[in-house]
């Protein structure tokens, strides 16, 4: 009975800790250097227009998106070659690695436009961003960090959700951005990109 209890405890421990224990940051770093750094940046902070930063993203977010690419559920042509056939273990290693990196803005982040920043900030509450992305907007579990992300990427992504060109793991984001004007998207993207 005591043995059974210990065994159970060990199994619970494993289950609860799977997002850390089963993955290997070092292996992920090695993979990322060869497969991801060219576009997403050597430190996971993208310096390339239209390409998202991955540093500090929740591990489960990275994992989920890679699985969606691999399974043909999210369509980004540039990602297909990198996701196709990638084993779960390597996806989890990559996710652990990117989650371990300190998040931060791109080197070319433009200067803050106070009016645009304020306009974006004013939309965060009405658009219920914090409900899923958490009050710090740093994300959790399968929901991404959106602060400090590249402004161009944020704007394009919100427009794609609004225009029905992208769905996520579900349609929550399509609902969240419905009816936003281009100017409102620009303001939100600027605000989020300026936040750390």
């Amino acid at each position: 009975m005591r043995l059974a209890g210990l065994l159970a405890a060990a199994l619970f421990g494993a289950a609860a800790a799977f997002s850390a224990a089963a993955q290997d940051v070092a292996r992920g770093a090695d993979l990322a250097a060869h497969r991801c750094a060219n576009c997403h940046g050597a430190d996971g902070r993208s310096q390339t227009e239209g390409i998202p930063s991955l540093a500090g993203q929740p591990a489960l977010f990275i994992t989920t998106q890679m699985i969606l690419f691999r399974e043909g559920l999210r369509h980004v042509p540039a990602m297909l070659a990198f996701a196709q056939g990638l084993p779960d273990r390597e996806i989890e290693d990559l996710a652990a690695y990117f989650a371990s990196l300190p998040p931060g803005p791109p080197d070319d982040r433009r200067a803050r436009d106070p009016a645009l920043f304020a306009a974006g900030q004013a939309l965060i509450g009405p658009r219920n961003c914090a409900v899923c992305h958490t009050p710090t907007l740093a994300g959790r579990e399968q929901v991404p960090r959106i602060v400090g992300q590249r402004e161009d990427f944020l704007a394009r992504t919100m427009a794609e959700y609004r225009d029905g060109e992208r769905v996520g793991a579900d349609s929550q984001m399509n609902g969240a951005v419905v009816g936003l004007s281009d100017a409102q998207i620009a303001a939100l993207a600027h605000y989020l990109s300026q936040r750390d």
Partner: protein
Amino acid sequence: MSRRRILLGLAAALVSAPVLAQQAPAPVPGWAVGRPEGSTLAPHAARLTVTPPDQVPVGAIRLPPGFHAEVFAHGIPGVRAIAEGPNGTLFAGTRAIGRVYAITRNPDGTTRTRTLLQGLAQPSGLVMIGNSLYVFAVNRVLRYDNIEANLDNPPAPVDLTAAYGLPTEQEHGGNHHWKFATLGPDGRIYMNVGVNCNVCDTDRDKFALLVSFNPDGSGRRIEARGVRNSVGMAHHPVTRELWATNHGRDWAGNDTPEDSLLRVRRSGEDFGFPYCLGSWADPQYNQGRNCSEFSQPAALLGPHTAVLGMRFYTGTMFPEQYRNQIFIARRGSWNRERLSGYDVVVAHLDAQGNVTRVEDFLTGLRDDANQRFADRPAEVHVLRDGSMLVSGEQMGAIYRITYRQ
């Protein structure tokens, strides 16, 4: 696939955009409608990657004396519904990962798993009729003929989507759009059409229903109304009555309302959503309705326990007391401060079909002291040898329960 989703999204945008004023508030995501300020409760994220075999928590499972649990199959992320072909192939549906698996048994008793289909939107409803596998992926209905002979190269499906005419994910507003489906003794396919919200006034002829169809999608019939969301159904092996599990609404307290077990005595019965659940009147949506005017649940199954798959035990391996009793998987709560469910219970019936008691059967996956869970039971399935399969959605494993005196 992508084109379809794009069109769906576009349709939603076109429908919704013009009526929104410039500063109109955006909809809160469906799961969070009614969430009190400051609450951090949210649905548990799904695991979409393979759990290494040594982390599959079969050792944590506790069963009554004489019962044993083993790992039947593993490495099948998101495994949920189970349907069995005439040659014994087990087909397993999923939600987020979009796959349908085919599991066959090797001569030595081990199993082999293939990813049969992928890239589908939440293919969680599976029905086997003869040699044909019916896949219900939200509103999409696909029939794969002669499937067991073509596990390595599934044929192009017959598309029955238009004939069934089920509501799309957009019509559901992203709420309760995935399906559970089962074959009735009358040869019809029974399924849920969940409600298009957490709780709301809805079109009660379109949502919050149990419905049945002829397999070709014709002859839609409402079997039960006012059923918020059922993700498990089965027909009584003797009386042929339809029974179903049903999820209660969120954000109405830790202990209310309860999930429930429904017995449908005649087609079209009304179980009261959104006004009532049993004797419980909804605090916001009761609208002065007397709860006694609605059909009452056969049993209450605990608050927020997330009752999913249910099957009558029709085998002979388990002791006689389990014959024709209902095994119910409770996937486990998120909308509750302390975890509930994460187990399999048995509803015992008397000769009149009244539930006399609900008792624990498979436990040990919920760690109350640390408020953690090791897996989430999503479906039960009785094999021909009388053993029982239980799918563990979170860890991507199927457990097999046997009995030895």
